[in-house]
């Protein structure tokens, strides 16, 4: 059994796929996409070539419906495939082969489509479609909420093993060069959707920029406290010519918080982590 959502977020111009399944490593097979191209979920007896071939067709200017038609039309096993496509403009199209295992089917709404096979019934995709809330600010959380709704509606009746969440947005990758904004996988877990939510929280911690409203000026008494904490965790500012920013950047880079680090300012989330490490370091 597998259930998934493909969607487009017009505000951030992002395309995404989220999926959960009873199989191993569902993220290896189902999600495909590209910024300003679209996104694809290929499942049931998944034809993996639907991924790269579908992206080629979308890149060539076909819309979602024409892409589905073209992929399925030349596939002798089309009746065992399930496919969802969302194109660059956010139009979606689905194919659920007649020979996919029951219950199988799909639903669509503005800028999204949900689909599944081997489900408890149509209420699983209905719950997913109802849970898709375009008003929820973060696209990743919206996709996750949809999977959680599918799970709660009985999507996990046969047990889930893996889940994945991918979002493509121009320039969103680490270093800014590529479009891989979010790429999270839970390949084998007793509660993969819950675990995926935990990974999404971690993703925000490591890769999102801090809220500018919350940043603390790194001076005065706070600067002295930070210097003491850096000293405790083995990054004394004295080894950086007394430069607090340099010592802090070194610690934060080694701990992967560089996206949350700016000279002269302190993200309270990162500060809490540094304080925790300093306390741990001080324990006998």
């Amino acid at each position, binding site marked *: 059994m597998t259930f998934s959502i493909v969607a487009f977020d017009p505000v951030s111009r992002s395309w995404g796929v989220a999926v959960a399944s009873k199989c191993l490593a569902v993220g290896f097979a189902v999600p495909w996409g590209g910024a300003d191209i679209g996104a694809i979920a290929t499942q049931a*007896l998944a034809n993996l070539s639907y991924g790269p071939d579908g992206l080629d067709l979308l890149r060539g200017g076909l819309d979602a419906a024409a892409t589905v038609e073209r992929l399925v039309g030349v596939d002798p096993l089309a009746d065992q495939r399930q496919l969802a496509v969302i194109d660059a403009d956010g139009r979606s199209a689905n194919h659920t082969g007649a020979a996919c295992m029951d219950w199988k089917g799909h639903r669509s709404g503005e800028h999204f489509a949900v689909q599944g096979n081997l489900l408890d019934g149509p209420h699983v995709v209905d719950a997913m479609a109802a849970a898709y809330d375009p008003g929820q600010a973060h696209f990743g959380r919206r996709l996750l909420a949809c999977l959680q709704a599918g799970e709660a509606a009985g999507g996990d009746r046969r047990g889930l093993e893996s889940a994945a969440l991918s979002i493509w947005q121009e320039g969103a990758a680490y270093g800014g*060069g590529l479009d891989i904004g979010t790429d999270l996988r839970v390949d084998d877990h007793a509660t993969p959707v819950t675990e995926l939510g935990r990974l999404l929280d971690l993703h925000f911690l490591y890769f999102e920029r801090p809220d500018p409203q919350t940043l603390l000026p790194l001076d005065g008494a706070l600067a002295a406290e930070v210097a003491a904490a850096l000293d405790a965790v083995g990054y004394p500012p004295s080894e950086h010519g007394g430069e607090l920013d340099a010592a802090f950047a070194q610690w934060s880079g080694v701990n992967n918080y560089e996206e949350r680090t700016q000279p002269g300012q302190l993200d309270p989330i990162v500060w809490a982590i540094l304080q925790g490490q300093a306390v741990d370091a001080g324990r006998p």
Partner: protein
Amino acid sequence: MTYSIVAFDAAATQWGVAVASKAMCVGAHVPWGAGGIGAVATQAYHDLRYGAEGLGALRRGRTAEEVVGELTVDDPESVFRQLGVVDASGRAATFTGAQCTPWAGGRHGDSWAVQGNILAGPHVVEAVAAAYGEAIGTFAERLVTALLAGDAAGGDRRGRQSAAVKVWASPLDRERERLDVELFLRIDDAELPVHDLQRLVRQAIAEPDRLGS
């Protein structure tokens, strides 16, 4: 932040990358490759474009050594980069920028390259290389066995968080479809990611029909 092995298995005609790191989701960033073309690991202060552009250079028939040269020559930040490449015929090259956080460095041999940064020491890459030479099993299993030796040797000196293995086969060998990815397994955040990865690989080999769909 990472140690990795890129290799070519001549017997299976497969290219692969295995990687472990004290950073989440290392499998989303480091491994790049294509069946019949080669494989690239881009890490440290990594530039993901090294993956895409490295593959582009390999597609144009460049050797592993030439790919490293092309990527690093015009990059003002190459001193922060680390890169391993294996080309279509299995020649390997490894590059470590002078400013990568110590210990940082690489080793390469016939059809493999091992590299890492922020490691416990040079013995980590040496342990990975030695274990790869002696490992048994499928290509993916041998890559992960090599990673485990690095883990046992101290690995990333900051600790453990994620690991991944990705293997590409020659697309002509795959009748099912055009896709050239033979296997791609990830542990994105765990206490013992390399051990978990080994378990996943064994599961995937034992039950290939349960993989991915």
